[in-house]
């Protein structure tokens, strides 16, 4: 009889381990948020001073900044396992691969949500966009978007961790896969900011939720391929 550690306990242990480490060094939350804000700022330069153009492009720029900064988050959390061969030891524990994956996804979530919490107001300020009334819809979009990104980002950060040219490979593999997430999130954000009826936003949120569920399920089912040497 092989006692496999209960999945919930594994998820909490893996996520807790990453949080404790990262919050102690606080390098990741601050670094990622700062990078996101700088990206938004630079986008402002790129699209010129025309306020109307910026406001119109704001949702797209917000989500591009979130995704670029998000890649820092998942890469950093994967680096924890790559350093000192920790990932190899992780694979030796009698724990289900799916639970370890869900632990890493859970670990990434708060950092991505923090990114949203920083970049949303930053977008409002830099691109003169009124977010007040649309806040609940925006928060929902950021939560669902972050969850989907964490699911796919965690998987691909793991898959490419020990591969040659992984710095190029991660964005190359990740961006096409999250294209629907980016599209749905941006459309939901546009609808929310435009004050469209919630049913409009809800349809995009539904698509986001479907994406999240599918990707988490496939990610958990195939994460064994990431841990396998």
């Amino acid at each position, binding site marked *: 009889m092989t006692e496999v550690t209960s999945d919930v306990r594994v998820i909490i242990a893996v996520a807790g381990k990453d949080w404790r480490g990262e919050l102690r060094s606080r390098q990741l939350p601050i670094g990622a948020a700062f990078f996101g804000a700088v990206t938004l700022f630079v986008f402002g330069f790129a699209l010129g001073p025309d306020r109307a153009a910026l406001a119109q492009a704001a949702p797209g720029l917000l989500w591009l900044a979130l995704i670029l900064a998000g890649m820092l988050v998942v890469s950093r959390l994967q680096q924890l396992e790559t350093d000192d061969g920790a990932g190899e030891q992780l694979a030796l524990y009698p724990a289900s691969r799916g639970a370890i994956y869900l632990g890493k996804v859970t670990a990434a979530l708060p950092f991505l949500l923090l990114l949203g919490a920083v970049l949303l107001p930053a977008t409002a300020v830099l691109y003169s966009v009124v977010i007040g009334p649309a806040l609940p819809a925006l928060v929902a979009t950021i939560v669902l978007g972050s969850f989907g990104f964490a699911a*796919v980002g965690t*998987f691909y950060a793991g*898959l490419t961790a020990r*591969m*040659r*040219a992984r710095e190029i*490979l991660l964005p*190359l*593999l990740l*961006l*096409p*896969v999250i*294209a*629907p997430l980016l*599209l*749905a999130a941006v*459309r939901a954000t546009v609808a929310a900011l435009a004050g469209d009826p919630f049913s409009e936003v809800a*349809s*995009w949120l539904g*698509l986001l939720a*479907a*994406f999240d569920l*599918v*990707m988490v399920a*496939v*990610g958990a089912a*195939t994460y064994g*391929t*990431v841990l*396998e*040497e």
Partner: protein
Amino acid sequence: MNRAALPVRLLGIAAVLTIGAATWYGLFVVPPDLNQGDAQRILYIHVASAWHAFFSFGLAAAASVGWLIWRNPRFDAAALAFAEVGVLFTVSTIWAGMMWGKPVWGTYWQWEDPRLVTTALLLALYLGYLLVRRLTDDPVRRATRAAAVAIIAAVDIPIVHFSVTWWRGLHQGPTFGNPETILNPPAPGAFVTALLFMLFGVILLWAWLIIRRYQLARLEWIAEEAAQRAAVGVPA
């Protein structure tokens, strides 16, 4: 010249003949379309390519699941064959879409056409698949990593299609009349026969390419393993 099995050679010949005839039929026999003119002739090969592109990637994912479960190299060889041939047909689909788009829409690339955008993403996903294979040396690990990428890509495609189709729904009224009729022109008899004719030819070609690519992949796996066994001195 390697003596491929007779049925495979016949399949190849049949494919060449059928596609040749279908092309001749589509280009010269079918009358030009009312509003699209000759450009409409591109649709036969465009649609045929598109179906085979998507079909191939579904099978690549299925073969990849087979590899992850049974770890038999045949599944990996099949997944590679489906993916690589799938890329070929995806490129064909995109090229046809652009050649058709310029005369009909006025631009090589139309964001309005959800199928074109979806196909382009498909190409990006499967170039990633081929790159992951190329960057991994150990045959078993290569198969395993590639399998995961193929499955995630295949699962991603329907969602890509939905999101792009909904997104397109927001852009109404391109310059050339209602997009619906242009994208799915009313199907006069000749159009359908030309399309089916080409489709049949491409099915034969697709099958031939898959079989040959599978054989090549299998031989490559055997050679790679033989080289490893020889290096290790373990009896074959």
